[in-house]
């Protein structure tokens, strides 16, 4: 049985192979982040099961109350229960975050594969992407929401479109390098059709970086949603989200700081943990190390 080949840099190979197990060692940070995110997701998803107040029910007699046993986080200027609003608000914020991440990854993947593989399409697509990137994301999102009206769907689309160029660039760069691999050329020689080569040979290469990029998009989408709501260009105020809870609370901030503090805290924790998980995923899926293993 012949042993591994490549008379070339066997010393380099050795270095790479032996440091492998290291990257699977998880620190305490990512584990805490994952647990925290899980807790937030469960708490918001299951909110209807345990929350005692309707987040939309106004009680004129109970405006701006401090935390009490009945209203854990107090009430807002309309006498609505802050605790249930924050929990329900998280549902919408997370939905928008995950939705925007999925849509932009899916669309970006499709466009990026085509741009990476077909030279002529590449020139056109990338110019469009360049011009999209030239417009500030928030401005573009505000314009899109203003055009299409404020609903969860339109906010997701408004956040997605500025994110797409980033995904396209990422996918395109992976495809550009992967299509030079001999196994892709061999597939061409074997008569595999273009869609088959794209989906079966090239797409799997993009998965690791896409998962990482997806988490970042998710975090930034939650943040952008909050900014849009805060600016009054987001989801209509009837639907609580972390962003518009804070937007409504800003006038009464000095009377009841909790109006901004609690949704803000949830928002920060959520984004922090998603980003931490993204970083960990990136370290674990690093394509350069992946290659050594493969």
């Amino acid at each position, binding site marked *: *049985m*012949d*042993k591994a*080949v490549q008379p*070339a840099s066997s010393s380099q190979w050795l270095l790479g192979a032996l440091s492998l197990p290291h990257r699977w060692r998880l620190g305490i940070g990512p584990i805490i982040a994952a647990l925290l995110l899980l807790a937030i997701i469960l708490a918001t998803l299951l909110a209807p099961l345990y929350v005692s107040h309707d987040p939309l029910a106004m009680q004129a007699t109970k405006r701006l109350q401090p935390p009490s046993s009945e209203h854990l986080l107090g009430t807002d200027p309309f006498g609505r229960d802050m605790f249930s609003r924050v929990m329900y608000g998280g549902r919408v914020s997370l939905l928008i975050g995950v939705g925007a991440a999925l849509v932009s990854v899916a669309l970006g993947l499709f466009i990026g594969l085509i741009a990476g593989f077909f030279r002529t399409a590449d020139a056109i697509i990338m110019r469009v992407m360049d011009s999209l990137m030239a417009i500030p994301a928030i401005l573009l999102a505000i314009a899109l929401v203003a055009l299409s009206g404020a609903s969860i769907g339109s906010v997701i689309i408004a956040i997605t479109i500025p994110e797409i160029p980033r995904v396209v660039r990422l996918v395109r760069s992976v495809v550009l390098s992967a299509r030079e*691999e001999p196994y892709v050329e061999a597939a*061409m*020689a074997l008569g595999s059709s273009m869609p088959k080569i794209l989906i079966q040979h090239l797409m799997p290469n993009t998965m690791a970086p896409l998962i990482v990029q997806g988490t970042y998009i998710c975090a930034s989408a939650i943040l952008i949603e909050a900014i849009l709501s805060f600016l009054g260009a987001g989801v209509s105020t009837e639907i609580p989200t972390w962003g518009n809870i804070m937007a409504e609370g800003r006038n009464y901030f000095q009377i009841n700081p909790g109006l901004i503090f609690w949704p803000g805290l949830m928002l920060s924790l959520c984004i922090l943990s998603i980003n931490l998980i993204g970083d960990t995923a990136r370290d674990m899926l690093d394509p350069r190390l992946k290659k050594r293993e493969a």
Partner: protein
Amino acid sequence: MKFKSRDFTASKVVLDVRDLSVRLPNQPQLRPILDGVSLQIRAGETACLVGESGSGKSVTSLAVMGLLPKDALRVTGGSITLSGRNLLQLSQKEMREARACNMAVIFQEPMTALNPVMRVGDQIEEVLKVHGDMPQKERQQRVLAIMEQVHLPNVRRIYASYPHQLSGGQRQRIMIAMALILEPELLIADEPTTALDVTTQGQILKLIAELQEKQDTAVLFITHDMGVVAEIADSVHVMKDGQVVEQAPVERLLRQPREDYTRKLLQAVPSLVPRQLRPAKQDEKVLQVRELKKIYGGGGFFRRAEGTLAAEDVSFAIPRGRTLGIVGESGSGKSTVARCVMRLIDPTEGQILVAGSEIARLSRQALRPHRRHIQIVFQDPFRSLNPRWKVGRSLIEGPVNYGTPRQEALRQAGDLMELVGLPRDALDRYPHQFSGGQRQRIAIARAVAMKPDVLVADEAVSALDVSIQAQVLELLADIQEKLGVAILFITHDLRVAAQICDDILVMQNGKIVEYGSASEVLANPRHDYTRALTEAAPGRGWDFANFRELQLA
């Protein structure tokens, strides 16, 4: 063939490695990486360390330099003495000193060993700066002097050049200048010519020998190429599985190898004697190329850019069951021709007839039915199979594309595994579970699965150890015998070409300089370039497999 035969017993011992053992830490149950390696090199002596990949050559050199990856490999026994100092007892700082002043290294790939954003002159100067304070003026003088010594042309211009502006040979000369400017006692050369063309290789080897003589340097030369060993070695150390299995002066080792492993290694070296002429069985030409021309780049939207001419006026034909070799150095256009023939790139002009059909101008769609007649095997066995796919899936990709039912294709794939000498259950494994040679067999099986008329082998054995190289060449010959396929064999290695080709076509700068039967081209080269190529082949006067001088018939 004249070997080096100087007697070194009077010279001082520069490097003395005794019973060196290296292990993976905390894994005493595993076989050691180095197991009791001993070797001695005296001043002015060239010691070659030969062996196949994984034999421990590189680990030995890393251990001498004190560059073993920390945590990953540990010296567990023995001693390394450089001019009387035991290197294993030195502190980090002292080791760095020793590495800088007493020994130097040249690596295989000069491009990655040089800093791409720094002028090469400054890089050589850097070495001087670290050791001793020399006035700027004097430093520059020394750098220019050493650049003269490594025979770089136009030293002032090259002094101010960046690495990418130099050729591979020039870069390697810069590396040598850097290594030798401080006149170290020991020079470690780790496959320094493997990435170079054969004519450049000859010059670099000569240069190292010349400077070695001037400075009386001890050289530890790591290589897998027996030809190089025959040219430059004083003594040879054959390594296998972390042990030195045989050490001897070069002539004795090549004439009377004592160990079986050494014999095996030498017998695997392909001979430069061309293979026996085979009578052409059929006249049917399965691949015909006429006046092929390829220009890279060019065109341009706003102005007509000048393209790079990669191949011009290339015409040849291969009958069924025969092998044509395209030989040339890097940049000669041989791979361009192969890729054009495969239609992986579009030829600029010319005709390509595969099994009678003209394919040079067909669109992607129209091309598909013709693809099955011509298949390719690539150089790098680690990249030519999709790492995410099981071998079986890779093997049936082609046949399924042309309508063979999956089950049927899998059954045939099993037969193919046996044809290329692998077990049937290999189909259920992933490529990373195989060695390079085995993967190359799988790649050949994948190509053969299409029952092609023509097989293009693009440097298909160049990444393999010699013994495996020999097996894969045998496999190709065997497959040709059984299936009658025509082979277009692209290689830079004349020895390999001599082994397998019926006809040889020599290319230089995109043009054919010589085209004829293998025996004619190799024995009586008519073109200067072909002659230069054959003369540059290291160890060309020696018949390694028979342990004697080459007997010309």
